């Protein structure tokens, strides 16, 4: 009986610790501080007509091709992804006001969830957030520009002086859902971009290439 009680107590303790850990936000150590939220705008890529060699891993599938960002005369940005042989996967438009238009998506991929996921991923890359509700926070290493969203926050994480973008995290209330790395900026655009979803296998990897 005593052994049973001890085991029961041990099991309860484990469950309690697991529950408490899973409910704890990974961002709980952040301290809100004064600071200029606009400093992250310098990391918004200045895509003109920029081409990236691209690999996409989604669940068990692998796609590769060329992803082309093109700034249009009306200031909208077109994002076109085609495989190396020229077959187009998608053609999206993001206008200056933040509106999104799907010009084309391969019929087999054309599902609402796919469109929404791709749209939100590329919105993180374009780095044009509405900063009216944003604030700055810090931990022992980094500076976080925290932008409230419908389901959580977007965290634009930089070094403490806001001179280098470390990564972007799109999070739920407690933990990151998507992480984006944009590294080695040359002529206003990153040489590499990596988008990683945290809850299922969906990764996009871009390497800038010459046209």
């Amino acid at each position, binding site marked *: 009986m005593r052994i049973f009680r001890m085991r029961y107590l041990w099991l309860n303790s484990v469950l309690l610790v697991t529950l408490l850990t899973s409910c704890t936000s990974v961002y709980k150590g952040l301290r809100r501080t004064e600071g200029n939220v606009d400093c992250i705008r310098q990391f918004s890529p200045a895509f003109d007509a920029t*081409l990236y060699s691209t690999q996409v891993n989604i669940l068990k599938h*692998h796609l590769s091709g060329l992803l082309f960002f093109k700034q249009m005369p009306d200031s909208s940005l077109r994002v076109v992804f085609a495989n190396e042989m020229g*077959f187009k996967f998608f053609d999206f438009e993001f206008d200056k006001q933040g509106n999104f238009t799907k010009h084309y998506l391969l019929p087999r991929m054309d599902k609402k969830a796919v469109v929404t996921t791709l749209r939100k991923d590329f919105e993180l890359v374009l780095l044009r957030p509405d900063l009216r509700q944003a604030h700055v926070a810090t931990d022992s290493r980094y500076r976080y520009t925290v932008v409230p969203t419908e389901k959580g926050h977007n965290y634009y994480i930089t070094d403490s002086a806001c001179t280098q973008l470390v990564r972007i995290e799109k999070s739920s209330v407690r933990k990151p859902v998507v992480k984006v790395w944009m590294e080695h900026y040359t002529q206003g655009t990153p040489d590499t971009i990596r988008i990683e979803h945290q809850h299922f296998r969906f990764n996009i990897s871009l390497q800038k290439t010459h046209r």
Partner: protein
Amino acid sequence: MCKWMMIGVISLLSLQLHAQSGFKPVTDLSVVKKEFARAAQQTQSIQCDFVQEKNLSMLSDKITSKGKFWFKRENKVRMEYQQPSYYLLVMNGKDIRIKDAQKESKVSGKNNKLFEQINKITVDCVRGTVLDNTDFTTKAYENAQSYRLEMVPVNKAMAGYFKTITLVVDKKDFTVSSITMAEPSGDDTNISFLHKQVNANIPDAVFVVK
């Protein structure tokens, strides 16, 4: 009445367009088929460079890729993209090998209708049987140097990918000079084959799919 006038005007404009580019409709397609097949009998292999231009109509821009192409009778094809990024496609019968910067994979043409069609068109071009492909309705035009074959997909699934596939065939040796794949969206992909070497010795190892 108005409709017929419109059709007349469009037909005239279309004829004028063909005349401008020097191409006029081929009157007897069977003659072309025979010539094509006869020349193809003598083609054992083709090795050449290629330049691919993906024209994005709405963006008024294009993406240019370059690489090397190999064909060997009966049905071995290798396309190696070298710029702007590396991509390899090897088709050996029904087996297909694909390699990009990150991953190498093998697929079966039997399970991939699109690759099966690409394979079929490529092999048909070299065999000289492209005009017999029943998956497309084909119209032929000619000028002094070339034939132009305009292929429209019959199959609905294929029509989702291509509006037309246009082949320009060199009259000198009946090899394909260019392929243009027009998409329903208005974009197209043009592949030009350059520096062709016909019947060069190409080892089978070039087409290994393992």
